[in-house]
């Protein structure tokens, strides 16, 4: 029994159905972790991308090294690092927040590249035209650069969101009770891993396929010429 739901191990089918509500609770944790993690990645990635464009060499260079480092090392080890090292510095976060932070940190390295590519894709002539029209830097970004970036970056960011969703199960390693964490617990108690683990896979599959299909549709629907913010 878990969260007040009793499982029925008579047949694999009854077992699968009876643990569905429990996995549903885990699914909410999974989705929440992906949402919080992605929000962090979106903001942190933007900060990194802007710092990367800094005129001060020391800043742009160290940001470049940092993103490369984060991108090329495993999420699991980064997670362990945050989980065990942060408390040494007096920062004690709940496991869920540590996990979301690790996801956000890893994916900020990816999103910063997406932003950077988006900014670089706006042609030089556009910047020059904005200067010629005497537009301020803020105005140039708001009215010229960002509207043209959107069709490029939205699909790329969406694909990273799906990737992140698929990496959330790693959080179960640091005691977060997401779908996989709960499935493992059910497996331990019933000595049947086949059904709960298969169920997790079967829930993920349509979720990621549908998300990818949505991103594909959005990508096609976005006008290549850009979207005005106002």
């Amino acid at each position, binding site marked *: 029994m878990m969260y007040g739901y009793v499982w029925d191990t008579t047949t694999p089918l009854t077992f699968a159905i009876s643990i569905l509500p429990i996995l549903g609770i885990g699914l909410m944790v999974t989705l929440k972790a992906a949402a919080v993690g992605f929000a962090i990645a979106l903001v942190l990635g933007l900060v990194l991308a802007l710092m990367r464009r800094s005129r001060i060499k020391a800043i742009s260079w160290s940001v470049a090294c940092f993103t490369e480092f984060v991108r*090329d090392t495993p*999420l699991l080890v980064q997670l362990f690092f945050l989980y*065990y*090292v942060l408390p040494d510095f007096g920062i004690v976060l709940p496991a869920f927040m540590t996990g979301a932070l690790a996801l956000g940190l890893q994916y900020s390295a990816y999103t910063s590249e997406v932003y950077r590519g988006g900014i670089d894709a706006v042609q030089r002539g556009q910047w020059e035209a904005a200067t010629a029209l005497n537009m301020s830097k803020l105005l140039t970004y708001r009215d010229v650069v960002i509207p043209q970036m959107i069709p490029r970056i939205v699909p790329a960011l969406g694909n990273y969101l799906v990737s992140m969703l698929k990496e959330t199960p790693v959080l*179960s390693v640091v005691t977060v009770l997401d779908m996989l964490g709960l499935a493992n617990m059910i497996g331990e108690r019933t000595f049947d891993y*086949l059904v709960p*683990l298969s169920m997790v896979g079967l829930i993920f599959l349509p979720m*990621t396929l549908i998300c990818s299909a949505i991103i594909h549709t959005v990508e096609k629907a976005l006008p290549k010429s850009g979207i005005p913010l106002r």
Partner: protein
Amino acid sequence: MTWTQYLAPLLKGAQVTVTISLASIAIGAILAFAAGIARISSNRILSGIAFAYVALFRGTPLLVQLFWFYYALPLIGISFDPVTTGIVTLALLTGAFGAEVVRGALVAVPLAQHEAARALNFSRTYTLWHISMPQAIIEMMPPFGNLAVQNLKDTALVSLISIADLTFQAQSLRNITLDSATIYTMTLLGYFIIALFLMFVLRFVEMKLRRGPAFPRSAHS
């Protein structure tokens, strides 16, 4: 214990990490070509099987796949040792992502090349291997490089099925010494160095391939 004493166990773990990564990349590459070519085959059954394989492994989390092969599969009488399980699972995942790369690069070969091959009466198989593939393989190299690094990062998860890889050794050391900051910093650096090496090797292969025949596309890019 000082950081120098951590080196020996971590290096031993790194060796396991590299072995698992290289083995699963090699098998994954074969799977990628097989499934990628099958995906564009005119044989519906073949392309259907490849589609299902790619969708299944791309659409589910690696950790779930890994636990499924490690904990669930033995329950229906199929079991391997942890290392084999780790290599097979990683190879299947890398192969599924690689299949999309192979398919994409083959589809991107200009239609004009296929028409020229047809006009010279080449068979379809001959066209695939001697006309399309040599042109497509160069376009596959950069995404393959990303997949190789992704594979290396993913190997960290095999520590969770009791394989003594770099991450596993780091965990054991931490449990003994509680010196988290040093151990995990060293571990992250270890992965970073292996990743840089992997990227260097793939870049080298790509340059070799590009230098061979003079490619118009490489001349412009």
